[in-house]
């Protein structure tokens, strides 16, 4: 009897140890270091800029960045399962300039801002459009401007030259996008023209919005030019681009309000723009249309 009890107890302890080890091992598996980058984009350390680093970053030698995964060519997982995209390339090059490591944390969009506020990350990216409303909550560094494209089914007769052309049209887009904002701001103009308002369907992610267009729920699919171009290419002729809209807002890197990382990061990105690496990255992903020469911190006079 005593023997049996002892055996059962030791088995229980054995299981508990296994579970505990797994528990400790798991978090380690979550945080990802940056996958090896493109050797053509390799940067050398710039001591003058590295001096701008905040003491905490100097101590940890790491920039922790939260990434909201989306579709190519923005932040996404490639066939090897690595996190890739133009924003990742810019971040990697910038941290090389600063002489620190890049630590990527894939997460959902909803966790980005609370995570920044809780100082769990130094920065966050996720195709985030910079607006003055958002600048009240976080600091944002502009890295690219983009325009938006409209896609429709190959047989569609829709043609969008100005936003007036989508008054009364059902358009699918994504939550939190600039497109949703532009549509909302344009509704009074539709009313003034005597047309019906834009019927906007706002989905959680780009894939659902694209599906809605493909199943004829919406006449048009309207998101950032990078994602639309990729989608049309993948549709093998089933969808086509039917119009474009260029806005003056930036996409950028978000940081906690008043972050001491901002000066160093801004200087590093500016350096990339000055020495041509930035243009190499932009050309690699086909984003020349939106390239900028200056990396503004908290730009104003843009979309509210």
């Amino acid at each position, binding site marked *: 009897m005593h023997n049996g009890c002892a055996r059962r107890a030791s088995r229980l302890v054995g299981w508990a140890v296994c579970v505990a080890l797994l528990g400790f091992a798991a978090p380690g598996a979550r945080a990802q270091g940056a996958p090896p980058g493109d050797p053509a984009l390799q940067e050398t350390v710039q001591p003058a800029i590295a001096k701008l680093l905040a003491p905490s970053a100097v101590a940890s030698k790491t920039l922790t960045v939260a990434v909201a995964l989306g579709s190519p060519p923005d932040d996404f997982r490639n066939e090897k399962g690595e996190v890739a995209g133009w924003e990742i390339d810019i971040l990697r090059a910038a941290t090389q300039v600063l002489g620190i490591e890049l630590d990527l944390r894939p997460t959902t969009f909803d966790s980005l801002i*609370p995570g920044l506020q809780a100082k769990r990350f130094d920065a966050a990216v996720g195709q985030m459009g910079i607006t003055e409303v958002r600048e009240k*909550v*976080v600091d944002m560094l502009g890295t690219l401007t983009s325009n938006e494209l409209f896609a429709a089914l190959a047989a569609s007769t829709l043609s969008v030259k100005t936003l007036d052309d989508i008054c009364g049209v059902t358009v699918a887009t994504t939550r*939190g996008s600039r497109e949703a904002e532009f549509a909302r701001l344009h509704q009074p103009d539709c009313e003034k023209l005597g047309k019906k308002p834009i019927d906007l*369907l706002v989905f*959680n992610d780009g894939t659902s919005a694209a599906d*809605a267009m493909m*199943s*004829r*729920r919406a006449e048009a699919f309207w998101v950032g030019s990078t994602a639309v171009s990729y989608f049309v290419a993948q549709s093998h002729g089933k969808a086509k681009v039917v119009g474009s809209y260029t806005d003056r807002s930036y996409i950028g890197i978000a940081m906690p309000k008043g972050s001491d990382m901002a000066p160093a990061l801004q200087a590093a990105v500016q350096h990339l723009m000055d020495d041509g690496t930035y243009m190499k990255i932009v050309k690699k992903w086909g984003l020349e249309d939106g390239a900028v020469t200056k990396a503004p911190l908290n730009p104003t006079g843009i979309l509210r």
Partner: protein
Amino acid sequence: MVRRVTEPEAAQPVVPLRHPGTWVATAIVLMIVALAAYSVATNPAFEWPVVAQYMFDPEILTGLQRTLELTVAAMLMGLLLGTVLALMRLSQNRLLSTVSWAYIWFFRSVPVLVQLIFWYNFGALYASISLGIPFGPTLFTVNTNTLITPLFAALAGLGLSQSAYTAEVIRAGIVSVPAGQTRAALALGMRRLMIYRRIILPQAMRVIIPPVGNEVISMVKNTSLVSVIALAELLYTTQLIYSRTYQTIPLLIVASLWYLIIVSVLSLGQHFLEHRFRHR
């Protein structure tokens, strides 16, 4: 010899057992609650002014209305269709009980999210739906997306799956009524449907109401699934707003507060219903 109780002894009151430990524990719990409440109220990170600003915002209230409408409609569908399914399941007729079993098996297995997406994108499978005579003329045709509106898809997805769950709860309630009740009713010359209506179901309500009350409360939250088909109910509305303004935490608090209010009201309603159906 029996000792007789004297007058003074008989008049002495009985002192109940005191529990000093409970008093101390109660005091500690109250103190913790008060400290927590104070901390939450004064922590600026919660952004209570933003919460107050959006609590009665028109966009939020519209989302709230949609949550309530979807909950009521889906639960009504669930109850009505569920009752029919439960009766079918218990029927002597083999065809009826098998069809009901298959329906329940299918709609409890496929995730509600998938059902919603499927109904919404039905137009991708069948661009139009026609009614006609096999190998004969077509009576009328309708564009699928016109027939299956987003609201239709939401109700189909939520209501049909809910009915499968409710059917099982109702069936359990019916089965819980003793067989003698049915025998006595049959012996009086009553027929099956009348027995269900007058004798079985009223008694089954005692067993049915608590789980169904639970289901209603779950449905209030499940309606948030319709965000995948771009319908803005309460939670999705808050998500849309904070996606724009980045004020994630206060907006989520707004949603949570409204859910707390709704569920509290529903719990009260359930309490009254249970009270009413108690055997006297």
